[in-house]
C-alpha cells in the first residue's frame, strides 16, 4: 500500500501546481488542478479519459517538465506483452557470457537485464519519475492484470532477482480514449479525471498560450467555430489539439495580414486540420459554413 510517507509530493500545494501548469502553458480548470493535486499527495495513479485531443497525454508531459523529472512512456497497443512493458533478458549477452566460460557468475543478473518502461519508472534512483501509460484501452484486457501490482504497490517481481519496489512511487498517469471499458480492478486503483472538450473561453486561453502569433480576434473566431462544430453530431468531434493545429495552420497562411476576419474560403481550405473524417467534412455544406463564419465573425468582432 502507498501512504503519504512514501509520496514524494505530499507537500505540493494548490498554488504550486497552478504555477507549474502556468509555466508549462497548460490551461487547467480548477477541477483538473484539484484532481492532479490529490493524485500527487495521495500517491494514487491518475486515470485520465476523454476524447482524443483533449490534452490527456499532454498532462503527463507537463507534469514531467514541471517537476523537472524524466517522463517514462509506455505506449499501449494490441498484443503488448509483459516483456515489452517490464523487462527482458539480454539473450545475446547471456550467450556470449556462457560461451566465454565464465561459469561462476549467473547470467540472470543485473548486467543482463534490459529494463522496459514499467521497471525503469520504478527503479529511478534520482527521485520519482512520471510514468505515462498511454492509451491503455488499446492493450489487451489481460495486460491490465499486469498493471495491477504496479499500480497498487508500485512494485514488480522479477523471478530471478526478486521484487523490485520503488523507493518513491512514480507519478502515474494512465490515459484512455474509452474505446473499450476498463476493468473495475484497474479503475479501483486510480483517481479518475475526465477531460471534456474545452469551452470557447478555455480554448481561447489555450490558443493565446500555444499559438501566440495568431491575432486574438481570429483566435476567437476559430474557437467559436470549433465549439459550434462540437454541437454537430460528428463522427469525430474536434479536440483542443485539432483546434491548435488549425490555429497554427491559419496563422501560417496569414503571416502578412493576420487581422482580417476569416473568410468562408479560408475556413473551407483549412477545415481538414479540424475534422478528420470525410463524412464530417462533407457535413459542413455551404449553408452550415456560412452560418459558422457569420457566427464566428461576430465573436471575433466582440473580442476586438
Amino acid at each position, binding site marked *: 500500500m502507498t501512504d503519504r510517507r512514501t509520496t514524494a509530493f505530499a507537500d505540493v500545494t494548490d498554488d504550486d501546481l497552478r504555477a507549474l501548469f502556468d509555466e508549462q502553458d497548460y490551461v487547467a480548470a*480548477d477541477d483538473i488542478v484539484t*484532481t492532479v493535486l490529490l493524485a500527487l499527495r495521495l500517491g494514487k495513479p491518475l486515470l485520465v479519459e476523454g476524447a482524443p485531443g483533449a490534452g490527456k497525454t499532454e498532462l503527463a508531459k507537463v507534469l514531467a517538465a514541471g517537476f523537472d523529472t524524466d517522463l517514462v512512456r509506455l505506449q499501449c497497443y494490441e498484443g503488448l506483452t509483459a516483456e515489452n512493458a517490464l523487462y527482458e533478458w539480454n539473450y545475446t549477452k547471456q550467450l556470449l557470457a556462457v560461451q566465454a566460460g565464465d561459469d561462476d557468475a549467473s547470467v540472470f543478473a543485473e548486467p543482463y537485464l534490459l529494463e522496459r518502461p514499467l521497471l525503469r519508472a520504478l527503479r529511478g534512483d534520482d527521485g520519482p519519475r512520471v510514468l505515462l501509460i498511454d492509451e491503455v*484501452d488499446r492493450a489487451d484486457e489481460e495486460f491490465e492484470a499486469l498493471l495491477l501490482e504496479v499500480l497498487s504497490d508500485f512494485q514488480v517481481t522479477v523471478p530471478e532477482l526478486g521484487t523490485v519496489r520503488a523507493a518513491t512511487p512514480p507519478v502515474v498517469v494512465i490515459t484512455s480514449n474509452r474505446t473499450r471499458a476498463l476493468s*473495475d480492478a484497474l*479503475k479501483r486503483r486510480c*483517481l479518475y479525471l475526465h477531460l471534456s472538450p474545452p469551452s470557447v473561453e478555455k480554448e481561447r486561453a489555450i490558443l493565446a498560450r500555444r499559438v501566440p502569433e495568431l491575432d486574438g480576434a481570429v483566435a476567437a473566431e476559430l474557437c467559436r467555430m470549433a465549439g459550434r462544430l462540437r454541437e454537430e*453530431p460528428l*463522427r469525430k468531434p474536434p479536440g483542443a489539439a485539432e483546434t491548435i493545429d488549425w490555429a497554427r495552420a491559419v496563422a501560417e497562411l496569414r503571416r502578412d495580414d493576420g487581422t482580417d476576419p476569416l473568410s468562408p474560403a479560408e475556413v473551407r481550405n483549412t477545415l481538414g486540420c479540424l475534422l478528420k473524417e470525410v463524412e464530417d467534412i462533407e*457535413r459542413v455544406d455551404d449553408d452550415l459554413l456560412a452560418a459558422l463564419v457569420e457566427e464566428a465573425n461576430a465573436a471575433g468582432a466582440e473580442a476586438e
Partner: protein
Amino acid sequence: MSDVPDFAAARDHVREELVRFLRSLRRAGVPVPANRGTTAARALVEVGFDDEATARAALRACLVSDPDDVPTFDRQFPEFWRRLTAGLAPGGPAPRREGPKGALAPLGGDPAEGEEVALDTRDAPDAGDDESDDRAWETTGTLGAVVSRSGDEADREATEAAWYSPTGSRTSVEGAVDEGRALAAAVDEVAEGVATLRGRRWRPGGDDRAHVRRALRSSFATGGTVVSLPRRERPPSEVRALWLVDVSRSVLDTVDRSFLLGVLRRARAEWRDSRVVFFDEDAREVSAAFDEPTATAALDALDRAAVEWGGGTRIGGSLATLRESHPDAVDGRTVVFVVSDGLEMGRVEVLERELARLARRAAAVLWLNPLASSPSYEPTARGMATALPFVDGLFAFGTPDDLAEVGRQLRRNGAGGRIGYEYDPRRGGSDTPSPLA
C-alpha cells in the same frame, strides 16, 4: 463547558455523511468500488471543507469513473454538501438551497439534526410518501429492468401512454425457430467477416509469439543454430456482438420471426460474446432467453418474460436507455447489429446523437432492415435517413440469402469497406453500387 470543538463528533459526522453519500450514489447506479470510501475520506482531509467546488472535484475524482455517471454525481453532491456542512456548522444547519429535492431520500438514514424538511426515512426504495415529489420504483419481472413511475394517478396515466404505442397492440411470439443449414452457414459467414477478437487457434506468421517447434525443426538443418525465428499468431476469428432488435409492430409485420429468432439464437450460441437487446419504446436485454437448450424453450422463455412485442418505436430513446443502463455493452471490439426498419417515432435529434455516440464506440454498426429486401427500397424514412451516415452498412434482412449476402460483402470488403444494400448484386445484377448509393 469549554469552547473546544468536538472533533470526534465532527469526524463521525463526516464519516456518516460520506457513507450515506456513497450508498446514495450506488443506489442511483453509480458503480462505486468498496475501497473508494477510504480514498474519498482521505481526499476530503487533503482538500478540506472550505470550498465546495474543490471538494466536489476531489470526490468526483474518487467516486466516479465513467463520464456518464457525472450528472448523477452532480445531482446528488449539493445535498451531500448541505448535510455535511450543516452538521459541521456551529450555528446550526445551513439553509436549503435550490437543487434537487430529496436526493438522498432513498438512503434510509435519519434526517440530519435540525433538518427542517423531513426526508423519507424508510429504507425500501418504493416507500415514499411525499406527494409533491414522490418517486417509486418497480422492477419488471424476469428481465429486471427498473422503471420509474409517478406517485399520483395522473402521472401514471401519462407514463402508461408513453409505454404503449397507438400503432399496434401486443402480440405473443409464435412460430418455429429457423435453424436450417443455410441459416447456420450464413451466420458463420457473417462471423467471418466481422470477427474482431482473436480465437484460440494459432497460425504461422504475424508477430504474436515465436513458433518454437518450427524454429527447432528448422535448426536441425543448420547444426542447431536458429537462423531465423518463425512467428505465429492468433488471427481474429471470434465475434463480440450486440444485437439491437426492434420489436415494434411495423418490424414484426415485415420480418419472418422464425428467421429472426433463428439468427439470434445461433449468434448467441456460436459467437464468443453475443448480447441481445429488444427495443421498441424502451430497451431490455433478453440474452438469457436465448440460452435455453431448445428452440421451443427459447420461445417459451420469451413468452414467460412477457416481452412486449408490437409497440411503437423510439430508437434514439432506446439507445439512450441502453447507454445508461448498460454502459459497458459496447466497446471498440463490439460489432453492433441493429435490426430495424428505421421508422422512428421519437425525436430524430436524439436518434442522431445516440447513433453518433454508438458509432464512435463500436467497432462497426451494421443495420439490418427487413424493408431493404425490396429492390425498390430507398432509405428515405426520416429515422433511416438520419441513421444512415452513422452506420457502416445497411443491408436487407429477411431470408438466409440476405444474411449470406451480408457475410459475402463483409468478407470481401471488411466492415469498414464499401458495403451495404447498394452493393447487393441482386438489386442491379452487378456488384457495383446502384444510383441510390
